């Protein structure tokens, strides 16, 4: 557990430093406390590294443009470079976490968390307007969504089940809180909320791309370390508990990672459609994959396909990216389902060739294996 605690601690530090960095940038440097100064230094370092990474990405896509001449990657459109980066990251992390949700019948938790993330966005906008905090709404969204995720998990631990009633309550509370805060503040609000509801390729700022890179690193890192435990808990929770895995901790980690994915994907997918990225590619992969490893890989490939096709269509046809990405993903799912229907018929033929394997019940002979 210490590894997870460390990872979560690291996230909190990095996020806090980002908050501090953006906050101090807006505040008068003359009145900084020493502690804030320290945070600012870490924040400067973190954002420096992220901006450097972003620069490398621009450079890479510039080369792609010069080599292929694809208009979408034109160096004049830095926002498209960032949108593609965000899209590619979402295409990895959404199905990665989604796999562990879908197979536990938790597909809707992403939707609930997205709506609470919207409340987080509203909180950020509200604080910026009222006390001039100057913090990215995506950061407050991460914080609020993670708190909501923990609440859903704790409720389910007390009541011994994930029930859709509590999920529905959390979902609507989040959205209600969001709309209330925003309407309360409507007079002083310069930024529209459409970009949060529906996502927008052109509003992905360097700062929010940086936030996404941090989320991406945390999510992929945590899953890479705890993949064994997550798989065991997902497949057979009781057996996992018997074997000594602290199931509750892994459930908490899973929902908090889900909250991070949701906020990361919100930038291009929007609150309303973000849950689709957690579910649809995974559902497609389930139809065709033969093993768990393969299903993870296939779901990422399907998601990347949907994201890239969706962004391209949205760029050239001038339509909302989120909607197109989901439509493409659903199209891929239907194809996968069709393939999944056809394949068992073929598999049955090969079965007949191999014949049934004799079930050897004598335990003594097994010991002599390899």
């Amino acid at each position, binding site marked *: 557990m210490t*590894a997870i605690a460390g990872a979560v601690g690291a996230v909190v530090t990095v996020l806090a430093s980002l908050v501090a960095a953006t906050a101090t940038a807006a505040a008068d440097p003359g009145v900084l406390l020493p502690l804030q100064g320290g945070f600012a230094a870490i924040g400067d370092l973190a954002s420096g590294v992220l901006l450097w990474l972003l620069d490398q990405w621009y450079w890479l896509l510039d080369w792609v443009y010069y080599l292929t001449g694809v208009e979408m990657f034109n160096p004049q459109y830095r926002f498209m470079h960032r949108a593609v980066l965000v899209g590619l990251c979402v295409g990895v992390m959404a199905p990665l976490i989604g796999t562990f949700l879908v*197979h*536990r019948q938790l597909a809707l938790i992403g939707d609930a968390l997205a709506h609470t993330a919207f409340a987080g966005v509203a909180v950020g906008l509200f604080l910026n307007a009222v006390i001039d905090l100057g913090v990215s709404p995506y950061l407050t969204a991460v914080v609020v969504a993670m708190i909501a995720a923990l609440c859903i998990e704790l409720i389910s631990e007390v009541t011994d089940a994930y029930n859709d009633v509590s999920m529905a309550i959390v979902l609507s509370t989040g959205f209600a809180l969001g709309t209330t805060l925003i309407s309360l503040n409507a007079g002083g609000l310069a930024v529209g909320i459409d970009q949060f509801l529906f996502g927008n390729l052109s509003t992905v700022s360097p700062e929010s791309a940086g936030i996404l890179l941090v989320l991406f690193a945390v999510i992929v890192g945590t899953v890479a*370390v*705890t993949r*064994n*435990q997550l*798989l*065991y808990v*997902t*497949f*057979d929770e*009781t*057996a996992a*508990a*018997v*074997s*000594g*895995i602290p199931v509750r901790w892994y459930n908490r980690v899973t929902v908090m990672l889900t909250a991070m994915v949701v906020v990361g994907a919100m930038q291009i997918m929007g609150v309303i459609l973000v849950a689709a990225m957690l579910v649809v590619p995974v559902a497609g*992969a*389930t139809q065709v*994959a*033969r*093993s*768990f*490893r*393969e*299903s993870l890989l296939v779901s990422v490939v399907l998601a990347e396909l949907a994201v890239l096709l969706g962004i391209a269509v949205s760029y050239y046809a001038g339509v909302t990216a989120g909607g197109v990405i989901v439509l493409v993903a659903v199209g891929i799912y239907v194809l996968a389902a069709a393939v999944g229907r056809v394949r*068992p018929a073929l598999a049955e033929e090969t079965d007949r060739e*191999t014949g049934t*394997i*004799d*079930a*050897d*019940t*004598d*335990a*003594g*002979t*097994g*010991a002599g*294996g*390899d």
Partner: protein
Amino acid sequence: MSDQSTSTTASGESTADDPADPSPTAVPVVALDGVTFGYTATPVVEDVSLTVAPGEYVAVVGPNGSGKSTLMQLMLGLLAPDAGAARLFGEPADRFDDGERIGYVAQHAGVAKEMPITVREVVEMGRFPHVGFGRLSSADRAIVERALDTVGMAGFADRRVTRLSGGQRQRAFIARALAGEADLLVLDEPTVGVDAESVEAFYELLASLNDRGITVLLIEHDLGAVVEHADRVVCLNREVYYDGPTDEFVRSDALARAFGAGAGALADAGVDG
């Protein structure tokens, strides 16, 4: 049944050493002492005391709602008793952290049904408590292959678990327990929804594993299977109605008392079959 010294009201702190048994290795696998548990004020399990020694083949039977599954969860430390003490390998069950010593096989309905996962991937889970955050070594993989061989599932290793029959699937879960090198195999109604022919083979497999020294604890509603295979029967309906050798259980009236009238015919059928 000399090893069942549960009536000795040992002080709660004593280790589970049985003075009647001189062997130092004979720390009971499971030791319940006056265990009572209820989800509400009404106890589901009341004042249950029993011990399971290493190498035993014990079946816990009882009608629906008799607290069998709850008792199993108490034994495994998934629940903490309201009163009394539950011990696993001599440690308090709810703080037991040597999980790889236990292999657990649930009703096959209990796991994620639509998940794309191969038999080998399921069996590999048995190694997870051993490797923690690490990767499976070649030694781990060899153990996995051996476990697949033992249960006769080597030929199905790359098959999706969802495409197996009920009996094959339960063999895969047994293999997972073997891969974990478990000393104790706990099965919660493992043959529900498994066709009759496979059930017979499944119990033969259990018997052969028991012959190798693995302790088998079977929670079962199928009395026929129990009287045929288990060495010892614990008949439960909130309280323990019978605890002793299987032969005597069949002759006793415990069944009728625990299940109510009409259950005797069931047991007879079980003996004949």
